[in-house]
């Protein structure tokens, strides 16, 4: 049995007695480690996230904020042309391309609005409806009309989302409609042909192709928060449902919507034709799945197609093997529809000291040549909000863009459809991911999950309308 050892008190000499390496040595080592850490921190894992222009002190400056586009070329083009526009009117334009989600950007805008530091030109994103209605945006009907006339008129979705009472407030850059990216070669190998005639044929392919042991899945749809609306909402439309009716009443717990959620979650829980990790994919999860060959199809805006064009994939000739199409229809009676983000549009701060100059910058950015080049820079991520741009060969002749223009653009709807866009319809968006995960992870029935989603959106509306 070991003897108990008493605690031995130390005197000051003992405390300061040197032991092994000296404190100085230790501090030096720690400093080296700290330096290494700082060096690591100084090496960015991504390209610079903010484009800021150095401006001579005496020059007048217009400030412009945008979220960072998925394709950095768009930001570069936007920045370069904003500088050109500024030079023509004797201004510098300080363009900040801010990374992060739409929510984070809206939070930054919200803070700037309260602090009175909103930039001259900005993209209000998910706060568009609020900012237009509460007088923070400058009406720019004249510019809106000029730009529209210059390029064949605005797409109806742009008019729905960026005009209020017939007055234009923001110029829409373009749409990012969601569409299916499908591995045509794998579909043909499995004995199917494209486009799928309906949802059941798509499921049949999924069942035929999926091999979980090899981590290969026929379908690649998201079941978490990111990208949730773009998956479930078109499916609800295909089943004859919708989140709202034309009057703006919430109809989420309708039988059609419940049936759509059931069908969608069955893909995961019953048929097991999507990767199990899809329940917690971050925004790029399905992109990565498609680009690495884990999934044979993905529903997404064209950021996947853009990545394929850039060759960000180990799969040889993936572009040639990719077929793009909307969700298949449910039945011939209910044709396919797809959802688009309302778009990134730019407007002017009503408190701007330079409203005329800011409008000149917008005029320049939306002039036909520069606008079309911006669309081309998007590499299929962006599709024009101005109808005349669709006549450009990039959209009318490129095989994949042509598929999107012919099959997807005519049937795209924004997230508020068929209701008139309102603050609480454009900010409400996370119910879909929650509903799917409540069924898959928590075992709720589709009806219970949709009822819960219904209540969430009703609460959001109540918050806005004050009960």
């Amino acid at each position, binding site marked *: 049995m070991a003897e108990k050892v008493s605690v*031995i008190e*130390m005197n000051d000499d003992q405390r300061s007695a040197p032991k092994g390496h000296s404190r100085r040595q230790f501090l030096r080592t720690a400093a080296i480690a700290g330096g290494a850490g700082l060096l690591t921190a100084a090496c960015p894992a991504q390209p610079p996230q903010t484009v800021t222009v150095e401006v001579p002190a005496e020059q007048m400056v217009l400030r412009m904020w945008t979220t960072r586009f998925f394709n950095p070329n768009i930001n570069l083009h936007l920045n370069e042309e904003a500088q050109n526009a500024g030079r023509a009117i004797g201004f510098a334009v300080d363009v900040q391309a801010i990374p992060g989600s739409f929510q984070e950007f*809206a939070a930054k805008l919200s803070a700037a609005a309260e602090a009175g530091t909103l930039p001259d030109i900005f993209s209000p994103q998910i706060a568009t409806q609020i900012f237009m209605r509460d007088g923070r945006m400058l009406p720019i009907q004249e510019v809106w009309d000029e730009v529209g006339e210059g390029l064949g008129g605005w797409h109806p979705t742009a008019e729905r989302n960026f005009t209020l009472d017939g007055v234009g407030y923001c110029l829409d850059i373009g749409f990012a409609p969601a569409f299916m990216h499908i591995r045509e070669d794998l579909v043909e190998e499995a004995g199917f042909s494209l486009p799928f005639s309906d949802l059941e044929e798509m499921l049949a392919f999924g069942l035929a192709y999926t091999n979980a042991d090899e981590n290969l899945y026929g379908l690649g749809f998201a079941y978490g928060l990111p990208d949730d609306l773009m998956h479930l909402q078109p499916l609800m439309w295909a089943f004859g449902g919708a989140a709202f009716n034309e009057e703006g009443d919430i109809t989420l717990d309708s039988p059609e919507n419940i049936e759509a959620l059931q069908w969608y979650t069955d893909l995961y829980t019953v048929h097991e034709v999507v990767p199990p990790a899809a329940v*917690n994919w971050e925004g790029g999860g399905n992109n990565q799945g498609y680009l690495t060959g884990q999934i044979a199809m993905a529903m997404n805006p064209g950021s996947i197609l853009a990545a394929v064009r850039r060759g960000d994939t180990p799969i040889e000739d993936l572009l040639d093997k990719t077929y793009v199409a909307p969700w298949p229809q449910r039945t011939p009676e209910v044709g396919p529809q797809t959802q688009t983000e309302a778009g990134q549009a730019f407007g002017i701060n009503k408190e701007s000291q330079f409203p005329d100059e800011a409008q000149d910058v917008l005029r320049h950015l939306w002039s036909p040549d520069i606008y079309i080049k911006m669309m081309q820079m998007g590499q299929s991520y962006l599709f024009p909000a101005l109808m005349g741009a669709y006549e450009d060969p990039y959209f009318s002749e490129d095989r994949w863009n042509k598929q999107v223009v012919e099959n997807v653009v005519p049937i795209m709807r924004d997230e508020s459809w068929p209701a008139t866009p309102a603050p609480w319809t454009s900010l409400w968006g996370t119910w879909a991911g929650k509903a799917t995960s409540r069924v898959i*992870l928590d075992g709720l029935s589709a009806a219970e999950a949709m009822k819960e989603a219904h209540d969430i959106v009703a*609460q959001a509306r109540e918050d806005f309308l004050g009960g």
Partner: protein
Amino acid sequence: MTQAGAERADPGGTRGLTDPKSRLRLPTETVLGIALMIPALATIIGLIGYPTLYAIWISLHTKLLAVRDMPFVGLENYVTVLSQGNFWHALGRTIYFTVVSVAIKVCIGMATALVLNENWPGRGLARAAVLLPWALPPLTAVVTWRFLFNDTTNVLNYILIKAHLIEKPILWLAKAEYAMPSAIIVGVWQGFPFFAITLLAGLSPIPDNLYDAAKVDGAGIIHRFLYVSLPAVFPVLMVAVTLSTIWTFNQFTVIWLLTQGGPGEATTTLPIAAYQQAFVAGSKNLSRGAVYAVLTFPVLVILVLLLNHFISSREETEA
């Protein structure tokens, strides 16, 4: 009486003690001290006091993201949040995440500190290397971990399968039962160097002759740790535990970047829930997000008070 006459009548200046004007006059050093403190106080009030008060203020209103109006609703948001299960579930997850994380960090940090306190070749390099997880920017570290956990790259699963530790790939971030442990692994990996270095600083001054004396008394390695090392580092350990508890309880970056609170709500701790209420879910209700933040405050105060009480009672026992 003139002033000179008064001084003559009271040469020791005792009357000044009862003079109301003199009693109000502060010594010069005190005035200077207060003046020097003002910038620091102003900074603290500006950076900590104002946001805290503003959070409490908006929690009593309905403040939606980007919306100008902010109607007063009193305690309605508190009633709403406290009557929903989400808050309590998030609190439970936060306590679980904090207790498990801090406990593991203490164990690994202590073990690392003991190893680094020994004399062996390459110790200096090892001490520097241990700091790296702590020195790395959280974004870089977590994105790297996410890559390791990812089900398409499967790096971690590949290593574990090759090492015959698992038979089938684990869905680290997609299964509720693995998501929280995954977040804890990353949090511990990032946080244990703080314990290691702090405890090492506590261990370094212990002279070798104490260990030698203990050896002479027949103490084995465990007893030397329990009766020599641990008492010496205990005060440092408690401070580190207190700080780490607060940091871990408020941990946002690791969980948000790794799982965004999912799958479902499996990793939705209080800071994540506050962020989601304010910026992601429903109407982007900043007020309800603020309620989560405000309610976190007393929980943390209670935790810190408990720890302080524990430290004080131990110090009294030792005394």
